[in-house]
């Protein structure tokens, strides 16, 4: 049985069915991301000023990732325009760039995730905190490369100007108190020439050499995975869900571009519609990222 309205538009809706379907799907997606955004707003506004640790993320890398995604959106819409002009070769070339952009985006995102999973916070028995990236871990000791100080955003400076300290890893009032204590302990340790540091509040740039922490001195050791604090939990949820959309979109675009391209010879209009529908989904993924990027990385 032939599927109706794959090319011709219905009289009542003025659309072919797949287009109506994708817009209904995108409407439901808006609500899905909207619910997660609202969760983020509640968590962000509920955090004490200066305690939201978004500086943990690499703004430069994600700016690059945003531009990669924008480029992919341009190539998607260009590929559709080329199909409309019956230029299949140009469609193939531009859509290949889209797929490469998707792979690049996921690659950069994976690099960022890996960085978080190698980034550790070690609380020692004496209350001092060592924060940095894992170099080596043995049965007897852990070798950490201390995190350099971050460049403060305008909002962090405003929080600081109001006299709010910046114990970035704080998750609750209790944790804030603990972090403040550890700052004092760190200052004392520095006077004694110790190599422990809390880079979020101290001049970690002074400690560029790797720090060796004996296993027997470690009270708690945890990486910056989603379990570390509420910020990272919502960060991984939002960016993870978005990354799944990128992967899903790239798979569909890749299928239409590769094995599905046979349809161009038999049903070119239907094929063009498929490209259009997959493109609409891709633009939506781009649209979500346009809001995710400033909210997660900059504010």
């Amino acid at each position, binding site marked *: 049985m032939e599927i109706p309205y794959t090319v011709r538009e219905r009289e009542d*809706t*003025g*659309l072919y069915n797949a*287009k*109506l379907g994708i*817009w*209904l799907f995108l*409407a439901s997606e*808006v*609500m899905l991301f*909207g*619910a997660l955004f*609202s969760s983020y*707003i*509640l968590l962000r*506004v509920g955090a004490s*000023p200066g305690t939201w640790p978004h500086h943990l993320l690499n*703004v430069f890398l994600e*700016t690059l990732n*945003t*531009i990669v995604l*924008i*480029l992919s*959106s*341009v190539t*998607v*819409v*260009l590929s*559709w*325009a080329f199909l*409309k*002009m019956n230029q299949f070769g140009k469609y193939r070339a531009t859509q290949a760039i889209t797929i490469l952009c998707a792979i690049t985006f996921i690659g950069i995102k994976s690099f960022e995730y890996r960085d978080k999973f190698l980034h550790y916070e070690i609380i020692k028995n004496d209350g001092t905190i060592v924060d940095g990236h894992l170099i080596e871990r043995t049965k007897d000791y852990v070798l950490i490369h201390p995190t350099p100080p971050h*460049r403060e*955003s*305008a*909002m962090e*400076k*405003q*929080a600081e100007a109001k006299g709010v300290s910046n114990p970035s890893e704080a998750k609750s009032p209790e944790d804030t108190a603990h972090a403040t204590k550890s700052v004092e302990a760190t200052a004392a340790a520095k006077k004694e020439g110790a190599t422990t540091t809390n880079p979020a509040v101290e001049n970690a740039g002074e400690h560029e050499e790797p720090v060796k922490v004996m296993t027997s001195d470690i009270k708690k050791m945890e990486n910056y995975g989603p379990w570390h604090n509420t910020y990272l939990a919502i960060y991984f949820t939002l960016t993870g869900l978005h990354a799944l959309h990128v992967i899903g979109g790239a798979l569909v675009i890749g299928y239409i571009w590769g094995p599905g391209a046979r349809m161009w010879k038999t049903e070119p209009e239907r094929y*063009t519609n498929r490209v*259009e529908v997959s*493109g*609409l989904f891709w*633009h*939506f993924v*781009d*649209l979500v990222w*346009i*809001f995710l*990027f*400033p*909210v997660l990385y*900059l*504010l």
Partner: protein
Amino acid sequence: MSSAHAHDPKAEIRRFIIVGVALAVGTIVTVLASFINFGTPGANIVVALVIACIKGFLVAGFFMHLVSERVMIYTILAATVFFFAGLMYLILWSLEPTSLMHDPAALIHIR
């Protein structure tokens, strides 16, 4: 991206490229603006969200062709905007200092 609205493909291609460049510039402006002190945290949030909204309009309006789409799609989106705005209103309402969420005693009384 409706075929009914693609008048001059070459002009459209030029427009898509211009929009793409505008989006890239908007991204860089967003990052730079985050390091400028606009006085209050609220002002910085507003600036970032205004830029994001402009970029969002460019993607939805031109890449998704919402500037010239069918009534049916506007109807679907109107319903979405209604529910999305309702969701955001609930969030903003809960953040109001007078909200019951900030008065646990009142919540216990209601229960």
